[in-house]
C-alpha cells in the first residue's frame, strides 16, 4: 500500500460562530490503529461526521485511498470502504440481529427491486453466509429476536458487525469502550486487533487512555478543534500542550 489510506487536508467545520474543527491535517496509513483523543468538545465526533459525510465540510478535503471523497454522500463513502460506529450505538432496535448486520451489505451490493423480485436464491445464500460469518466473528448469535433486547456491549458489537460486513478499508470507532466493563474492554481490545488482522485500518476516538495507549501506535490529540499534538503514547503524554489541554495551565499550579 502506497500513501495514506485516509487523509484529511485542512479539514474544517464551523457552526455559526463556533469553529468545531479547525484546519485538521490527518494522515493515516494502512494497518494503523490510530487513537484520537481530546477533552469533551474538542471536535472529535464532528471530525468523524465530516469524514463519514454526515456533515458538509466548511473547508478542506477528505481522501480515501487517494480518492477525493469530500463531496461524496455517506453511502458512497461507505461503499468506497469507510465504515463507522457511533458513541451511542445506532442500531435498528426492532430488526433482528441478522437483519441489523445484513443492512451493512448495501454498500457492496445495493439492494434493488429487481433482486427482490427475481433475484437468484444462490446470491441470497451467499449474503446469508457473509452475515453469519460476521456474526460468528463478533460472537453474536443470529436469533430472530429484536436487537433492542441485546445488552449495551452486544449492541456495540452489532454496530461494528454492520460496518465490518461492508469490508471497509478504514473503520472509525467512536468511543468503543464507553459504557463497557473491564472484561468487556479487554475483549474489545482483542476484537480491535483481530479486525486489524483482517486488513482493516482503524481510527478510534476514546477516553479510556489505557486502551488507547495499549492499542495505538500513533495518537492524535485535538483541543478546541485544532490538532495540538501527534505521536506515540510516550511523546503525547509528555507534550506540554496536551497536559495543558487536559489539566489546565501549569503556571503557578502544581500538577
Amino acid at each position, binding site marked *: 500500500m502506497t500513501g495514506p489510506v485516509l487523509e484529511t487536508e485542512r479539514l474544517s467545520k464551523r457552526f455559526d460562530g463556533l469553529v468545531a474543527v479547525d484546519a485538521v491535517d490527518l494522515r493515516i496509513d494502512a494497518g494503523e490503529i490510530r487513537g484520537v483523543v481530546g477533552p469533551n468538545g474538542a471536535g472529535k465526533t464532528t471530525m468523524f461526521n465530516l469524514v*463519514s*459525510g*454526515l456533515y458538509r465540510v466548511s473547508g478542506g478535503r477528505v481522501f480515501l485511498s487517494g480518492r477525493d471523497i469530500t463531496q461524496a*454522500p*455517506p*453511502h458512497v*463513502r*461507505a*461503499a468506497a470502504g469507510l*465504515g*463507522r460506529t*457511533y458513541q451511542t450505538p*445506532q*442500531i*435498528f*432496535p*426492532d*430488526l*433482528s440481529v*441478522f*437483519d*441489523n448486520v*445484513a*443492512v*451493512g*451489505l*448495501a*454498500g*457492496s*451490493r*445495493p*439492494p*434493488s*427491486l429487481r*433482486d*427482490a*423480485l427475481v*433475484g437468484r*436464491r444462490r446470491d*441470497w445464500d451467499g*449474503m*446469508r453466509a457473509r452475515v453469519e460469518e460476521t456474526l460468528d466473528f463478533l460472537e453474536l448469535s443470529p436469533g*430472530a*429476536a*429484536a436487537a*433492542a*433486547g441485546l445488552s449495551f456491549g452486544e449492541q456495540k458489537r452489532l*454496530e461494528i458487525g*454492520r*460496518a465490518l460486513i*461492508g469490508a471497509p478499508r478504514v473503520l472509525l470507532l467512536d468511543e468503543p469502550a464507553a459504557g463497557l466493563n473491564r472484561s468487556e474492554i479487554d475483549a474489545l481490545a482483542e476484537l480491535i486487533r483481530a479486525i486489524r488482522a483482517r486488513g482493516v485500518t482503524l481510527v478510534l476516538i476514546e477516553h479510556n487512555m489505557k486502551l488507547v495507549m495499549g492499542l495505538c501506535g500513533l495518537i492524535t490529540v485535538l483541543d478546541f478543534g485544532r490538532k495540538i499534538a501527534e505521536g506515540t503514547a510516550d511523546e503525547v503524554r509528555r507534550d506540554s500542550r496536551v497536559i495543558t489541554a487536559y489539566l489546565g495551565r501549569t503556571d503557578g499550579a502544581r500538577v
Partner: protein
Amino acid sequence: MTISWRRRFWTPTSGVTVAALVAVPPLLASSPYYLFLLNTIAVFVMLALGLQLVLGYGGILQLGYAGFFGLGAYTSAVLTVHHGWPFPAAFVAAMVVAVIGALVMSPIVRLHDVNFAMATFVFGLILELVYNQWSAMTNGPIGFRGIPPPTLLGLTVREPEHYYYLLLAALLAEYLLISRLLHSPFGTVVRAMRENETACRTAGVDVTRVKVTLLLVSSAIAGAAGSLLAHMNGFISPPTFGWATSVAVLMMVVLGGVRSLPGAIVGAVVIRLVVEQTSVLGQYSNIVFGVALVLFMAFLPTGLAGLVGRVSARVPWAGRLGTGSVPS
C-alpha cells in the same frame, strides 16, 4: 419478528384464506348491493396495502396517495373511451402514468418529516385540482361517464361477481409482490430505514433511492387500483381521488396496524364499512375520522394487528395471529 429473506408464500393459512375469498361471491350472489360493497372494499384493500408498503414499512409519510389513484383511474378512462385502447393496455398505461406522477414528485424525498408530508399532501391537492379543472380531459366536477367494462381474452367482465375475481387476482398479485419485496434484502433495508436513517446512510444505503423506489412501486399499485375502480363503476369523479380519500386510506393503515399486511386488509374492510354506515353523517364523517385517527395514534399506535399480537402473546392457542406486527 419476521425472519428475513424467504420466498415461501403458500402456507396453510394463506391457502385457506385464498380459498375462502374465492368462495365468497356465490354466497352473496343474491345481493347485488353486498357484491358491490365487496368489490369496492377490494379496491380499497389494494390501496391500503400499497400505502402500508410506503408509509407503514418505509416510514415515508405519503399523504397524497389518492391523487395517484386518480391518475390511474383517469388515464384508463380517457384511453379506453377517447382513444379506443383495449383494457389491458389502458391498465398498464394507468400504472405507468401513476409512476410518472410519482417521478415528478420524487425530488421532494430530500425534504424531511413534516416538510415531506406537507409536500405530498399538497401534491395530492394539486392532482385533485387538475381532475376538477381540466374539464376537456376529465369532464371536471360533473364526472367522467361511460367507461366500458374490461374485456380480457375476449371475455367482457360485466357482472359484479365476475369482476370480483378480477379484483381478487389483482389483489393476490399485489400481496405476493409486496410480501416478496419485504422478505428480500431490499425489504430488510426498507424496514431499517424507517428505524434509523442516519445509520442506514453510513452503512452504505442510498436512502434516497430506496425511498423513491418505494414511492414508485406504491404509486403503480394506486394506478392499478384506480384503473380497476374506473372500469368497475363506469363512472369516476374528482372527490374519490381527493384528500379525504388519502386520509381514509391512511386511517385504514393506522387502524389496522402499521407494518402489518393483514392489518391493512382489516383496516380497509372496517373503514369502508364505517364509511358506508356513516354516510348519513355526510360531511361530518371527516370529523369522526379525524377524532378516530387521533385516538388511535394516542392509545393504539400499533392498530388492531398490534392488539391481536398482544392478546395472542397471552393466549397460547392464538399463536401466530399477530406475527410481525408488534414492535417491541
